[in-house]
């Protein structure tokens, strides 16, 4: 192991290093640079100070992301459980059904969800045809949550599914042997032993939920301003790169904090996969 790496080994690492510098470190440095400079390029804390006026947006985004994550967990865990316990052939089919939407761009999926739910959309025309009152879903907070849950559910199901199917069958037998019925086995053994999967799932849903802008714009009908929307606006319309960079920086810190908190829960076991 003490041998020096050969030239070839070093060369093999070069493309990755270039990639990391160009597309990960570089942009991060840009974010830092813009966040702490003013339009003239001199050091300034004014962008950061300005952030207090955006605090309600941060709060709203966190709330939306938390609610969406909670729903994903409530729907995702039983689904993952059923999948992991199904016959191998049904498992493959269920997995295919779960993955199928993920092969389609998130934008397209969100857009089609919007057309389904829109006032003149499929759902409402069906309701109309049945002689019922139409409902306006698009533009409500519920629609945004629905969009997040719909788009990010697979990210919750997959890690949980993996940890349940990896679970040693002997633990379930031991639980049954010691007097657990099905429910007790689930709550006393399966759930605690799949915490790493749950933590991965929560992180993988929470992070994209808190930073999304497209879902809130399309399904929220512009009524909800989330962090993602605000950042997008700063860069797209107002050319206030500096404020946008400052918001991005805070969002990144928020995400890192939430990941750190989640890792604490999982005893550092499965959480390492994410960070």
């Amino acid at each position, binding site marked *: 192991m003490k041998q020096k790496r050969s030239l070839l080994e070093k060369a093999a690492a070069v493309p990755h290093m270039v990639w990391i510098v160009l597309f990960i470190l570089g942009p991060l440095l840009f974010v830092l640079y813009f966040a702490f400079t003013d339009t003239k390029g001199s050091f300034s804390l004014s962008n950061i100070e300005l952030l207090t006026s955006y605090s309600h947006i941060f709060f709203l985004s966190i709330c939306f992301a938390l609610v969406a994550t909670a729903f994903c967990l409530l729907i995702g865990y039983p689904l993952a459980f059923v999948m992991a316990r199904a016959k191998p052939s049904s498992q493959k089919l269920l997995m295919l059904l779960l993955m199928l939407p993920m092969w389609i761009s998130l934008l397209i999926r969100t857009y089609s969800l919007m057309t389904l739910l829109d006032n003149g959309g499929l759902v409402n025309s069906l309701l109309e045809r049945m002689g019922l009152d139409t409902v306006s879903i698009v533009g409500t907070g519920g629609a945004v949550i629905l969009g997040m849950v719909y788009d990010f559910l697979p990210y919750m199901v997959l890690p949980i599914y993996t940890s349940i199917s990896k679970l040693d069958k002997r633990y379930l037998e031991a639980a*049954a*042997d010691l007097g657990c019925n099905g429910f007790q086995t689930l709550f006393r053994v399966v759930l605690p032993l799949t915490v790493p999967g749950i933590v991965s799932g929560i992180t993988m849903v929470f992070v994209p939920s808190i930073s999304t802008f497209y879902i809130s714009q399309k399904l929220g009908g512009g009524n909800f301003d989330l962090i993602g929307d605000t950042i997008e606006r700063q860069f797209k319309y107002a050319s206030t790169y500096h404020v946008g960079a400052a918001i991005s920086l805070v969002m990144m810190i928020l995400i890192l904090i939430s990941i750190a908190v989640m890792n604490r829960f999982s005893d550092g076991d499965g959480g390492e996969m994410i960070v």
Partner: protein
Amino acid sequence: MNNKLIELRSIVKSFDGEQVLCGINLDIHDKEFVTLLGPSGCGKTTTLRIIGGFETPDTGEVVFEGKRINDVPPYKRAVNTVFQKYALFPHLNVYDNVAFGLRLQKVGEEEIRDRVREMLTMTGLKGFEMRKPSTLSGGQQQRVAIARALINRPRVLLLDEPLGALDLKLRKDMQNELKRIQHATGITFIYVTHDQEEALSMSDTVVVMADGKIQQIGTPTDIYNEPVNAFVADFIGESNILDGVMLSDKRARFAGHTFDCVDGGFAKNEQVDIVIRPEDVDVVPVTRGMLSGTVSSVTFKGDYYEIIVDIAGFKWMIETSDYVAPDEKIGLYIEPDAIHVMKKSEYSGKFGDYSTFSEEMEHLSDPALEVEEEVASE
């Protein structure tokens, strides 16, 4: 010991069309230490899992205290299991693992504390309460598994190769420990192993299994001294198994010589299998021997020599305390009561002489290796 606790009646079980149990009939009595003994794949673990409720027999009945329990799920049976690799819950510490069963029974925390303490004392685990299973040695995990099962005061404790993963020294200690615990608690133990020595030294009753069938049920002495067929004779201890003919009661002919023996009840001139244990043969000068042959190998075993002797092409294994040199001609003397006569069975001829025997082969059937294979194949 008299009242039957568990009865297995004509149990048949197949996996993927392959029959692993072909009609098992077995009575297990209260307070008995029963060992299911056999090579891997003989169906012993499946039998145990059927008693535990983890498998349902295809046909046949499992009867517990006179009641049919085929469809009773494991958590409703008065039976607890010590699993092959313990299956301790990794998210719980030793205390919570042991208390697991009692918590489900809604026993008060105070009583739980007393009973857990009692169990941990009995299994020598005092002071380990807060440790996680992953920080314990194999022997300690084993003890936790036993404590976790016994604390529920089951009628029957099932043990599935519980000592398979331990090293030899520890295995011996745990054998004594288990025997002591069984005496102290008076709980019926059903013990699965492929280690014949373990089976002989621990059990009240040994059940020898092969190919999904019970070959013989008996006390350790019966099984060793009076094996019913060539399989049992070969599996339990070392034995020379020869083709023979019963000339009349107490007269057997084999290896080109007519011997006096103590067995009878066979038809005149019936073909039989003859078993002679290596330690029951005396080495004598050629002139005084009933048989004579050439020593082909000698192995020093500490308190005795294990020699292979070629007698008219058949290789005998003999244990002797006197050294003989390889290639020496020796005579063999066999007492009548050292000759055990068995009826011919499907296993006759499958277990020949010791011509292919070598230390290497011995190593191949090393118990520890077999356990790993079994686990891997599950």
